[in-house]
């Protein structure tokens, strides 16, 4: 029974010029965004690879130099692009994907509000994720708003039900009919996406297809929510026009209002300092220290070393006190960085929880967070990378200051050779596993599941009670 309805809906939609135009526009946008995302990702990855090699080459060939000067010379660390990042750029455009690692400073990307872009701004740069999150639901609404209201308005609903089919079968047939029409768009896009993952897997992620499968399932659940909502509204209201207006209202709330409200609410509940304010605070704390984190004193360090080694002058020390002092200064600064960045990251994390929790009011928030997570472009994975880069920077500083302390003496001009630079291992970064991502995105997954079950329960209830005429 249901297959007859599916076939008829599919045929009817294919012959509908409005559907053909809408589907063609969305399809072209989807394929173009996939293609441009892939090209951009590969271009960026190629640029990163070239820059990484150049930066390493510069590091290794910087010639004879004092290790502390080399520490200031610094090196770049690049965030590897995960294979799915071409689908969803996430926060990368706001945070950047490279960081300059140098002495005394934890340079970072968090000075700009990463997730604060409005829906309008987000739509400005069209990505495949945006097509899937905004335009496909709109297409579903256009396909399904008249599913029952239109049949009722035209008078075909009573003829359909007079055949002896149940409302449930009719609604399921309609839902699968819409799904079939959508498949015409999504299957080619999925093929292009899979090919892109296969051909353009530059990153280190070992499980791009597993991530892709979960991502596809997430988006399918999101689309199913819209199909169910469209059926529910179409069964509930009297006319197709009212159904369309109501569903467009849902789309606006979901896509435009809820994200803005989520940003504003999460910021008001867990405010973050402005970039200038944050930088000034760190500068002040580094210059003065804070209770419990005292700024090291060069004379005290020297006196302690003299006492430890039982000698009278720095010339008698078996190491260079300056190198030890510089490392102590680094460790002091690291504590200040940890204190400030830790607080900032925690606030971002709490904002993220508010964001995810608000997806109870808008499924977009859930699917968007999940999408960024699986694409490897969310705040949490940025933090994961930033932490790894910072650990590398600290190790680099430790090596440079250690070399200075061990291989030079007070008052002498010490120049380390290129062998010293070559001994510093290049920055290696392993992206988090799928399990790590899913654990972090458990709330979004739960919310999406809740929406799916809830939308179908509501649709089932309203379809059962739908008036015939």
């Amino acid at each position, binding site marked *: *029974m249901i297959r*007859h*309805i599916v076939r*008829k809906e599919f*045929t*009817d939609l294919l*012959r*509908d010029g409005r559907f053909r135009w809408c589907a063609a526009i969305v399809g072209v946008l989807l394929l173009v965004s996939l293609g441009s995302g892939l090209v951009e990702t590969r271009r960026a990855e190629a640029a990163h690879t070239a820059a990484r090699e150049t930066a390493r080459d510069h590091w290794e060939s910087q010639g004879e130099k004092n290790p502390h000067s080399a520490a200031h010379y610094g090196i770049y660390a690049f965030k590897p692009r995960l294979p799915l990042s071409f689908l969803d750029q996430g926060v990368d455009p706001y945070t950047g994907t490279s960081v300059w690692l140098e002495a005394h400073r934890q340079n970072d990307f968090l000075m700009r509000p990463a997730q604060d872009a409005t829906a309008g701004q987000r739509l400005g740069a069209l990505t495949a994720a945006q097509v899937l999150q905004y335009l496909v639901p709109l297409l579903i609404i256009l396909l399904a708003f008249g599913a029952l209201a239109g049949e009722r308005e*035209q*008078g*075909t609903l*009573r*003829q*359909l*039900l*007079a*055949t*002896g*089919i*149940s409302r449930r079968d009719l609604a399921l047939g309609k839902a699968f009919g819409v799904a079939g029409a959508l498949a015409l768009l999504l299957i080619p896009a999925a093929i292009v996406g899979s090919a892109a993952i296969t051909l353009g897997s530059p990153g280190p992620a070992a499980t791009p297809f597993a991530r892709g499968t979960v991502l596809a399932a997430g988006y399918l659940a999101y689309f199913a929510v819209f199909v169910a909502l469209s059926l529910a509204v179409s069964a509930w209201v009297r006319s197709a026009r009212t159904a369309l207006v109501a569903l467009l209202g849902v789309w606006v709330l979901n896509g435009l209002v809820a994200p803005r409200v989520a940003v504003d609410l999460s910021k008001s509940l867990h405010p973050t300092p402005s970039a200038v304010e944050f930088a000034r605070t760190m500068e002040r704390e580094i210059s003065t220290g804070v209770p419990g984190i005292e700024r090291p004193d060069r004379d005290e360090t020297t006196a302690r070393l003299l006492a430890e080694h039982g000698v009278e002058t720095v010339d008698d020390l078996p190491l260079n006190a300056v190198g030890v002092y510089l490392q102590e200064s680094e460790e002091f600064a690291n504590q200040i960085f940890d204190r400030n960045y830790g607080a900032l990251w925690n606030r971002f994390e709490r904002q993220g929880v508010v964001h995810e929790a608000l997806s109870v009011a808008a499924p977009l928030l859930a699917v968007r967070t999940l999408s960024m997570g699986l694409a490897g472009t969310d705040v949490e994975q940025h933090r994961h990378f930033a932490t790894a880069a910072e650990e590398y920077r600290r190790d680099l500083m430790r090596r440079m200051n250690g070399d200075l302390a061990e291989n030079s003496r007070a008052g002498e001009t010490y120049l380390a050779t290129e062998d010293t630079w070559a001994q510093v291992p290049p920055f290696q970064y392993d992206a988090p596993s799928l399990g790590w991502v899913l654990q972090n995105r458990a709330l979004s997954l739960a919310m999406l599941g809740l929406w799916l079950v809830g939308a179908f329960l509501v649709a089932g209830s309203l379809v059962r009670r739908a008036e*015939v*005429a």
Partner: protein
Amino acid sequence: MSTEAVLDTPATGEAPPIPVRAAELEDPILEARSLVKRYGDIEAVAGLDLSIQPGEVYCLLGPNGAGKTTTIHLFLGFIEPDSGRVRVSGFDVAQNALDARRRLAYVPEQVMLYRNLSGLENLQYFAALGGRETLSSERLTEILVDVGLPLPAVGRRVAEYSKGMRQKVGIAIAVAKDAEALLLDEPTSGLDPKASREFSELIETLRGRGVAVLMATHDLFRAKESGTRIGIMRHGRLVTELSTGEIGHADLERIYLDHMQE
């Protein structure tokens, strides 16, 4: 329209499984007992008792708002009665609406079809939903042509059809279903006199096959021609019942007008 051709060829395909019925086969196919349906203060149907046996064509006459269409919708289970009971082939419509509908065919006053599909595709769709999915395209085309749709129109999209052509497809849908009972709500609306006459012949043939027919109509002539019994409704009540064999056209018109003027 060749009524015999429509009905002589038995429709192939398996009918849906028939659950155990609450009544015996000799019982009326269509039955209403003390049926009441109110819309606010208005009683659209007020204590209607109706019983239509196999092979009987019952015509409901009455002005607009008399309760004819409401009665048909109650038989279809589209609306719930405030009190009373409706049965179709022994199935209580309130409890087994789907089983009841599977034994009914229905032709509304305005047959509405899917504009992007052809007449044949519409018939295929409705026939399949009605449990006749195995009917071949050839057989369905035959039915469409036999109810008066021109052969060249069979494959054309319904968007190009006139109201009368759509009505003929609606009748074809009812014929293809091969149901035990037929509910007709002003079925000849939009049909030209020739097609109306052919429709009467079709009803006569269906009656001969034991189909119970309930037809709501304003058309006194068609009621006299096609009906075996006539019920005149006014303000939701059945004010009189007549056997068409016992009265002439003029008598029917006089009786009808008398009741309308009361």
